[in-house]
């Protein structure tokens, strides 16, 4: 069973790499932010799989914290950066 869990974790990590592509491509700030949020969900799933694979129930707490706090970054984005997002937010 450990094999399935580890394989699943590896697969999820690969999907995370695919998601990074979206962060880099954009095109809008909202796309990038949503991709980062998707990583949060992937990480939660990954942590739950690793909790089973390593038989470390403490990792479920880590997943819980992630699931609970991921919203803070996206609320910041919506409240503070959203209006500017239509403009050229990426000007360096």
């Amino acid at each position: 069973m450990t094999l399935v869990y580890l394989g699943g974790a590896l697969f999820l990590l690969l999907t995370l790499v695919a998601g990074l592509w979206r962060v880099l491509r954009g095109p809008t700030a909202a796309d990038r932010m949503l991709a980062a949020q998707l990583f949060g969900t992937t990480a939660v799933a990954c942590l739950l799989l690793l909790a089973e694979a390593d038989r470390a129930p403490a990792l479920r707490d880590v997943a819980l914290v992630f699931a609970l706090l991921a919203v803070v970054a996206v609320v910041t984005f919506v409240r503070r950066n959203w209006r500017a997002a239509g403009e050229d937010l990426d000007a360096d």
Partner: protein
Amino acid sequence: MTPRGAAPWLRFSVALLLVGMFAALAWVLLGLPPRSAGLQPQVAAQMAVSGVDHPVTAVLLNFRGYDTLLEMAVLLLACLGVWSLSPAVPPTDETPGAMLAALPRQLVPLMVLMAGYLLWRGATGPGGAFQAGAVLGAAGVLLLLTGWRLPVRWQGWRLRLLLIAGVGMFVLVALAVVPASGVLLGYPLPVAGTLILLIEALAGLSIGVTLMALFLGGEPGASR
């Protein structure tokens, strides 16, 4: 407004130096013994007198209590630094929509519950004051983002009391155990667990409030 970076020759020499540094340090790392228990045996040997069952908590609050005490002081200093630099940014956000207004009502109680759980969990497993404080701080940030403002009567001494509660309790306990054990922070075993939980509870609260105050980006209620 394009940032001018360093000149190419400078970039190159910096890169060269850093590659050298990396190689030297990597050589040292690879030369370290591949198996070493570090301080783990010493910690394991002392666990019985620590008052808690989780090694990391024992190290943080008991064996290396000074570190944690001074770390709390550093947090306080960072907050003082932020306060002395600027007043809090005045709230300009428009009122949140229905979704954002409902969000903290659902989530903040859960976050506070999670913080309490992590604090309690710290005695026997992964968790503790820092994690609990961080979750509490995130709950505060969420409240601030969704339109909640610190009430004026909480901006004075009450806020300051919360900020120093962690360090204050730590110092008080450190001094209070001196008659019993002869040294600062030398908890007598029968009450060690209780004292650690007491310190952790207030430290977690202080860390949470400090992180929230840091997010405010200045002294609340101050005007320039």
